[in-house]
């Protein structure tokens, strides 16, 4: 372990990687602060850039954006009552009330401190557990992988949205899109409609940038509201001893809870912050204070979303299973560089894993500095109008996508997926499952076909091997519990 950490320091402490880490967390904080532009859109915008910089640096940069956004998102929630990104929705409930009572500084401070503690807990967890999990996962064969991915996709579709059916459809379309191109075993063209341009398949970066970048821009044009700052003077960001004492419990619980939820496929930052808020409210002696500016309601969720952002890297780097849309983008970035995430990743490219882990420690410290003394600077960003921002994002996306393959055809695909992304949001389909499924598609298909070959055509192989059966049972249980809960709910509605 010690040698490996040293290797990590060697990678993370080069000038350029410190710079990438700093750039990542600063950009992350900035886009976290800006409502409408979240980490998913930003990371997809930056995907083309990862072609031209080294692998470690690009993952350091992209992950910095992700956990940086978790810090920044709270700022807008507290000051404008408009979550900067989805994981900070609940922070707005109490954070905005605190700001109204003149305690904006304290709310921001406690959010930053909670984020720091939880972020560090998650990195330590990643540091210790990831190598263990990946040693265990090496024993997996194709059937286990099929079951694991089916379970992952089931969790993602059921946990992430209001309408699981729409998410299932979204995921299936993603899997189908992944089929386009050359057959992995026989080499024949599939679903290319006879064109040569589709022979190499659709580019992951192009789809992600279309759905998240352009789609988001188009959607924002229609829905954007004006942001009203409650105050732009932030004083006293360091909470008093009394505030710290009140927040200590929620921060600790939030860190642990967030870490565990982040491990689940489909879990991630959004759900963990919602859960933490519910837990804190239930445990509180004064639940009536929640929604009126309770510091616990800021401390818990903000810690939880940061912890989840960190622990979500574990399934990606050990099992090769991205648990949310951001992790799917990371997966894509790794594949661009010819690295397949999975149990062998830590062994085969140790400098990547340990370098990224060490950079996260550094990034967290940088974020604490950015978010405590320098938060005033980022608040000024809220004065940038969305119309200006979205125009610039559109231009950068278009040119960025061209730069991937120097191909104008990709720009048309981008526009097409931008429109698809816009319509999906309109009709309440989640683009997340589509991208995830697209990334997992080729691996899932290959594993599926290998399993059938191993078992000589008997689909029973998926339920006769214990680990695989276990995963499928988990998926089945989840579906069953959801259907049951739904039925109960509709019966209640019927009676009422």
């Amino acid at each position: 372990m010690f040698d490996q950490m040293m290797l990590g320091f060697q990678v993370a402490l080069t000038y350029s990687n410190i710079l990438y880490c700093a750039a990542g967390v600063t950009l992350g904080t900035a886009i976290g602060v800006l409502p409408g532009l979240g980490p998913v859109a930003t990371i997809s915008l930056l995907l083309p850039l990862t072609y031209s910089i080294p692998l470690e640096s690009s993952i350091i940069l992209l992950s910095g954006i992700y956990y940086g956004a978790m810090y920044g998102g709270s700022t807008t929630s507290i000051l404008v009552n408009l979550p900067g990104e989805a994981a900070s929705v609940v922070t707005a409930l109490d954070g905005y009330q605190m700001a109204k009572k003149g305690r904006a500084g304290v709310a921001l401070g406690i959010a930053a401190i909670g984020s720091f503690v939880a972020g560090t807990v998650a990195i330590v967890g990643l540091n210790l557990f990831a190598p263990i999990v990946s040693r265990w996962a090496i024993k997996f064969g194709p059937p286990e992988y099929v079951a694991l991915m089916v379970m992952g996709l089931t969790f993602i579709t059921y946990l992430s949205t209001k309408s699981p059916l729409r998410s299932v459809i979204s995921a299936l379309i993603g899997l189908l899109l992944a089929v386009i191109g050359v057959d992995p075993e026989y080499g024949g063209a599939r679903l290319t409609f006879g064109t040569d341009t589709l022979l190499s398949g659709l580019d992951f970066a192009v789809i992600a940038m279309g759905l998240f970048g352009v789609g988001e821009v188009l959607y924002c044009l229609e829905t954007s509201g004006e942001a009203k700052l409650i105050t732009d003077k932030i004083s006293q960001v360091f909470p008093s001893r009394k505030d710290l004492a009140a927040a200590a419990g929620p921060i600790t619980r939030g860190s642990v809870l967030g870490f565990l939820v982040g491990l689940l496929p489909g879990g991630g930052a959004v759900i963990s912050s919602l859960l933490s808020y519910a837990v804190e409210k239930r445990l509180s002696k004064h639940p009536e204070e929640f929604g009126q500016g309770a510091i616990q309601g800021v401390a818990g969720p903000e810690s939880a979303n940061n912890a989840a952002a960190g622990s979500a890297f574990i399934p990606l780097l050990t099992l090769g299973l991205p648990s949310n849309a951001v992790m799917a983008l990371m997966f894509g970035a790794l594949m661009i560089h010819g690295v397949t995430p999975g149990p062998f990743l830590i062994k085969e490219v140790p400098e990547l894993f340990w370098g990224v882990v060490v950079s996260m420690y550094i990034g967290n410290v940088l974020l604490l500095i950015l978010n405590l003394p320098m938060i005033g600077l980022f608040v000024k960003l809220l004065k940038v109008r969305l119309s200006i921002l979205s125009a610039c994002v559109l231009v950068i996306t278009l040119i960025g996508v061209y730069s991937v393959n120097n191909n104008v055809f990709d720009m048309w695909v981008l526009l097409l997926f931008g429109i698809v992304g816009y319509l999906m949001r309109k009709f309440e389909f989640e683009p997340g499952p589509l991208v995830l499924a697209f990334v997992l598609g080729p691996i899932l298909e290959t594993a599926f076909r290998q399993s059938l070959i191993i078992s000589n055509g008997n689909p029973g192989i998926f339920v006769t091997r214990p680990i695989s059966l276990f995963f499928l049972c988990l998926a089945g249980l989840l579906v069953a519990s959801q259907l049951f809960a739904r039925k109960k709910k509709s019966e209640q509605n019927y009676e009422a």
Partner: protein
Amino acid sequence: MPLVIGIVAAVGAYELELGQLNKPGPGLWPFILSVMLVACSLVLFVKDVRKDNYEKFTGKTKLVIYSIVATAVFIVVFKTLGLVAAVVALLLFQLRVVGAESWKISALVTVGMTVAVYLLFSLWLKIPFPGLLSLIERGCFRV
């Protein structure tokens, strides 16, 4: 929409030979997927066709359509005239018409972004861009 995709894909997959279970052909996997997709879409159709489930299209929707058309024009201009002309045109349109910014702000942002984009992509990342103007820039037409 998903229903149509599902049916097209199912037919396409079927034509690819499904193979046997113990010798899965290229079409087996997409066929399974598309059958599931068709099934799910049908359920969705039956379950909620109610209109109130969807966000309404508002007066601002035309801004979205403008932007889509503007982007399409951008791609054409980008291919024929080149990077700078396309960026300037798209930014001016998006800021002035879609964003309703003042001329002053639109012009300032456009100039700033164009320079930034040019420096970043063309000079730093050295990406060869298409179009007439870029060819002249690179000296392809020097007499």
